[in-house]
């Protein structure tokens, strides 16, 4: 009946038992993605960490749209960090937008984000401003 890995037993002074769930360190900034449409262009704005956990939200931001935008803009103004899964998600967007024929812009990158995109030479795949 002893406590296995997973939950942490925390007994308070009178012996009551609560089960503490431990959250990973990097969940500090909540992700927010919202999209707007204008002039046949779908704009997706990213706030906070753009990483592994953002997958579902990001996918929904462009796949739930009724029409077929001609251009896409990903606004990174609020994004402070990208990891390799974020790069993968951008590739998915590019694929959705037509792959080699796609017109996807990435704008408002801070220096860190810019650097990450540059190492992966993503300016060969996206228009980056």
């Amino acid at each position, binding site marked *: *009946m*002893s*406590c*296995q*890995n*997973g*939950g942490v*037993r925390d*007994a308070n002074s*009178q*012996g*009551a*038992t609560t*089960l503490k769930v431990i959250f990973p360190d990097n969940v500090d900034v909540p992700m927010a993605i919202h999209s707007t449409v204008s002039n046949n262009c779908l704009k997706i704005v990213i706030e906070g960490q753009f990483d592994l956990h953002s997958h579902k939200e990001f996918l929904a931001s462009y796949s739930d749209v009724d029409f077929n935008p001609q251009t896409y803009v990903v606004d990174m103004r609020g994004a402070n960090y990208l990891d*390799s*899964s974020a*790069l*993968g*998600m951008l*590739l*998915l967007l590019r*694929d959705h937008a037509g792959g*080699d024929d796609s017109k996807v812009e990435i704008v408002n990158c801070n220096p860190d984000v810019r650097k990450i995109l*540059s*190492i*992966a*030479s*993503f300016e*060969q*795949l996206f228009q980056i401003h």
Partner: protein
Amino acid sequence: MSSSVRILVADDNSVDRLYLSSILRKEGYQVLQAVDGRDAVEQFEEHRPEIVLLDVIMPVMDGMEAARLIKEISGEFFVPVIFLTSLTGKDDLVKCLEAGGDDFLSKPYSPVILRAKLNVLQRFRQMQVTMLEQRDQIALHNRDLIRDQEAASGIFNCVAPSGALERDNIRHLISPLAAFNGDVLLAERSLSGSLHILLGDFIGHGLTAAVGTIPLAEVFLSMTHKGHLLRDIVVECNSKLNSIFPTGYFCCVNMIEMNMLKGTIEIWAGGIPDAYITSENGEVRRIESQHVPLGILGPKSFDPSTQVFEVSVGDRLIMFTDGVLEARDAEGNDFGAARVEEILSGDGDIGDHFDELTRQIHEQIGGREGDDDITLIEIEMVADKEMEPVAEYQGAGSSEARDWRMTYELGTSSLKSFHPLPLIHQIIMEGQDLQGHGSLLYTVLAELYNNALEHGVLNMPSSKKVGEGGFAKYYEDYQKALEELEEGFVRFECESSERDGEVEMTIRVIDSGAGFDYHNVCFDKQQANGQYHGRGLGLVNQLCSSMTFKGNGNEIEVVLRTSIGSS
């Protein structure tokens, strides 16, 4: 449902105890009775009832103390405790809750109220049981995943044995989490004599990352071994990954050819952080990523162009995956590129930089678990003669072809885009008892072909090889000349026959060039020269039984003889 649930009732007054037990039995519960606090604890320990009802004031041990002990015994399992009390003061009730009680029931007992309270607590109890079950399931699942990954890692080690990295001129660290984070380091000697190195970083974690390393290693290692050009290997690797990966997955790669003869490092860099070449004179050169990582672009859009750097013996190439740059200290600060560059520009022997870099990174991390995700490699440029002979895979073929002939001609278009050596080499090796001579044969073919193409067809002077800008410039000019070529060919004519217990192989290479005056050339002298530009044909002369020029110098014929069954 409630028939299987057991409730412990503790009250020193038998009347209250009996009354409460009757109420509970009517609700369908199984009832255990205790007469005081100590009795309650003992009964709980033995029978582990699901719910406990405790009178607060009892002799021997009171309800609050009993509650505390019972909660302790039950550990991570939630056992609802209800205090039975005729205390009405708010302070007393607060004390009950602080003692670990989950609710109270006051006298006179109301069956309706008791039922309501029990329902709520039952629900909580069930939730907690479910949660623990799920937690245990997850833990089990986790264990399975880790076992799978260890198995995958074991398979990978067979495909790409890390022994290939055990060389005098290579130092490396590979992340202990490499099986899970997709870092890969490969080194293999080409049949051409060059050393090929691959540093890879797959996107994703776990099996997704690990599984891609196996086909990548297969392609890289086998093509390297067969003597393929770096650019052809990187094209094939990209195609391979492209075909197996869904969109969104890719592999960042630095692929290197270190050519000890030419003194060059050729690199295809896609997605890996800046790499560095340090020299004994203190110079530090930065190699930036130029390409999109592997697995993203289709064959048509893929760009295999490489960067070529000239290096001297003693220069070192240092490269690493982003784990190094992102190594974090206790405050969450990244190690960063600036720090790396500072260390590499530091005073002292450049051979010490690797150790210093390693030391500082480990200091930064400070032994924190999970951050030990470092993959780092240093390759030192050594003289060609220090390299051991290329190992040959023992083929399993038992069939032999001893008398055959072949003609293979490459036209203009093929000369521009196709590197024929692995193919020609394989044709000759296949079905011949030439075990142990593969490397020699490759060298001969390579030199003859390069001579035919560069000096014959493209008419590039050999003295240009060592001059201003050295090989990097030469290579540039070569690329340009090849691109601008309008007409030309190189033809291989091979014959093999058996004579006097020996296999005699004749290889003729003819090019469309103007030829040269070969009558006064002495190759023995040039071989002694030791410099590459003289080495080519001189070496061929040494390796073959005979070497003859024909035509107007645009045709070279060599004869190789091997005893049948020799090695």
